[in-house]
């Protein structure tokens, strides 16, 4: 570019620059510590208004040349003579007596298409080193959830790609399905698999990491990139080393970003990993603000903390764009205690839960899903007919198996019927095992589950089920593509589809036995 042009531009800009005289509301910092500041003044401050902390101009440095970045805070407590505010960012630079300006804005984050594929902090700033994200729109992070007239019941499925979930605990678009379990039971793995499986499903995914280890996030990002899932995913990261205020606002920021896409009529999947840490962060801020502690030292409004967040997930009807936000909140329990305060709260808010158990995990059943305790209250309305048909039998098989499992040790003393049910159950458990990062398409799931529930696997040894399944899937993908596409298109198991599918399974079994 021409040098003179730049200078001309600059001149013009300076000439046209006008300062408007306006009254600004200011306050002063009374005390600051642990990410929370007490401020006097600011008489017209709104609740959850953004505040700007500026270093006082008496710093000696006349024009304050090198420090321009101001730190923002959010007013949380409006008291008689003072305001309690949490500080978003490094609070070390803020001193007693510093000036605080009110901005007249509720805390908002920039939103836009450019956010897709990026890692951002809860304020919408990039943290992946890929350059600044340019967005022209701002969305408030706190928003009242869509009302009744705008909503519609769930009618479209979210394919997680995990056989056990898609078959027995189906999740619909706009649903809130809790993933709950102890540490190290594969909660995040399920969420990540669900993201990976959204490829080509016209879904935008937002993964909100709350108080997570940055190394874990780096691993997840690398994995998503490898699978090409970052093309439709945004990661909102509040790391373990970030202030508690970041962890507190992270899910709301993620949701605000989701709402931007919702307003465009798109389907969004938001994962909050995890809300227990979110509650901890809020507890910390509340205690420092001297709000009275309640059960487990959480403040009185933890229920509202999560209910207002999860209520923002919705399926909108056609008149309002028809978009949806599906939420997969994650809760980490301590030693399997689901009756603790936060788990019970979130269980009651959500439309069902996926319950993971460490016992099952160590037994090698992964995903370590407890099928008995896991439910989906609305998802079955969205399940495809084909899946519904095979899944109904699956649940029954598993329930019977669990009832009879205790008798399994009697071995040969059992009657024929019982023995058969136990054998079927063992195979079912085996089929429902699935590796991480290996989500499966709906049509493939239907095919294998059909084979299972209709007894085609009863003559395969339990130890060989895994190999058999892998070979079967390979056979389906290579030689029986048409059946798969038929299921995918019709989404129903009509008689002719069933006939074709059975033929494929029989053909494969013939080849398999001859090959062995």
């Amino acid at each position, binding site marked *: 570019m021409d040098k003179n042009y730049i200078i001309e531009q*600059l001149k013009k*800009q*300076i000439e046209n*620059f006008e*300062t408007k*005289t*306006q*009254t*600004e*509301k*200011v*306050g002063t910092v009374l005390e600051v510590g642990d990410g929370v500041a007490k401020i006097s*003044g*600011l*008489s*017209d401050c709104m609740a959850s208004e953004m505040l700007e902390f500026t270093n006082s*101009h*008496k710093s000696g440095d*006349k*024009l*304050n040349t090198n420090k*321009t970045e101001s730190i923002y805070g959010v007013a949380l407590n409006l008291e*008689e*003579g003072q305001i309690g505010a949490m500080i978003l960012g490094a609070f070390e630079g803020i001193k007693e007596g510093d000036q605080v300006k009110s901005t007249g804005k509720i805390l908002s984050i920039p939103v836009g298409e450019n956010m897709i594929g990026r890692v951002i902090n809860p304020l919408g700033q990039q943290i992946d080193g890929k350059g600044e994200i340019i967005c022209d729109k701002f969305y408030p992070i706190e928003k009242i959830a869509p009302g009744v007239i705008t909503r519609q019941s769930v009618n479209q499925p979210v394919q997680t790609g995990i056989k056990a979930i898609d078959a027995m605990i189906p999740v619909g678009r706009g649903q809130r399905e809790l993933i709950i379990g102890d540490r190290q039971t594969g909660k995040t793995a399920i969420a990540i698999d669900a993201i990976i499986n959204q490829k080509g499903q016209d879904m935008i995914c937002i993964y909100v990491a709350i108080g997570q280890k940055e190394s874990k996030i780096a691993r997840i990002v690398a994995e998503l990139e490898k699978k090409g899932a970052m093309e439709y995913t945004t990661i909102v990261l509040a790391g373990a080393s970030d202030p508690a205020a970041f962890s507190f606002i992270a899910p709301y920021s993620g949701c605000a970003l989701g709402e931007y896409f919702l307003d465009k009529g798109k389907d969004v999947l938001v994962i909050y990993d995890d809300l227990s840490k979110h509650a901890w962060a809020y507890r910390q801020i509340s205690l420092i603000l001297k709000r009275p502690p309640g059960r487990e030292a959480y403040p009185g409004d933890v229920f509202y903390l999560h209910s207002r967040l999860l209520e923002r997930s919705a399926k909108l009807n056609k008149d309002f764009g028809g978009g949806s936000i599906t939420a997969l909140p994650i809760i980490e329990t301590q030693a399997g205690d689901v009756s603790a305060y936060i788990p019970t709260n979130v269980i009651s808010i959500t439309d069902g839960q996926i319950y993971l158990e460490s016992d099952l995990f160590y037994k090698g059943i992964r995903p370590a899903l407890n099928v008995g305790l896991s439910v989906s209250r609305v998802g079955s309305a969205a399940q495809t007919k084909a899946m519904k048909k095979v899944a109904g039998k699956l649940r029954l098989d598993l329930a019977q198996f669990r009832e009879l499992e205790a008798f399994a040790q009697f071995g040969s003393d059992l009657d024929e019927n019982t023995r058969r049910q136990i054998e079927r159950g063992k195979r079912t458990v085996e089929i429902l095992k699935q590796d991480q990062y290996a989500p499966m398409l709906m049509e493939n799931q239907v095919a294998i589950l059909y084979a299972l529930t209709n007894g085609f696997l009863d003559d395969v040894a339990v130890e060989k089920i895994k190999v058999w399944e892998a070979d079967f899937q390979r056979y389906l993908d290579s030689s029986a593509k048409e059946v798969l596409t038929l299921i995918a298109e019709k989404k129903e198991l009509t008689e002719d589809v069933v006939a074709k599918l059975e033929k494929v399974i029989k053909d494969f079994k013939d080849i398999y036995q001859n090959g062995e």
Partner: protein
Amino acid sequence: MKITANQYAKTLFELIDNKPSQDVEKIIYNFVRVVKKNKQIKLFPGILERLSFIWNNKYKIAEAKIISAEELNEKDEKKIKDYLKEKYKVEKVVISKEIDKNIIGGFIIKTGDDIVDQSISGKIKKLRENLIK
């Protein structure tokens, strides 16, 4: 329950409002004793602040602090006073002045929580923010 500075200030104001000065002296003496008895002596700065706020509200007085680079002349001072009278709908404006060479030129008016920044340094700062954008 603890009594707040605001409550003390309100009570004190109601007690001393429209009272002859010898009564006021006695009331204040008793007031200080009560606050001391309640072990809330450290609230005094707050009480004083609230009291002047309530007083100013009732008698329509605005207290303003003007920071300027150089001594203000009478004419400018009157202009500012008129401006403030208009703005806050008060009858009297009490001004305290401060000289700060760091603001280069112009003035800053501080009234309670409100700030009107008409200083050169403030303008330069705004210009810079604008240019960075």
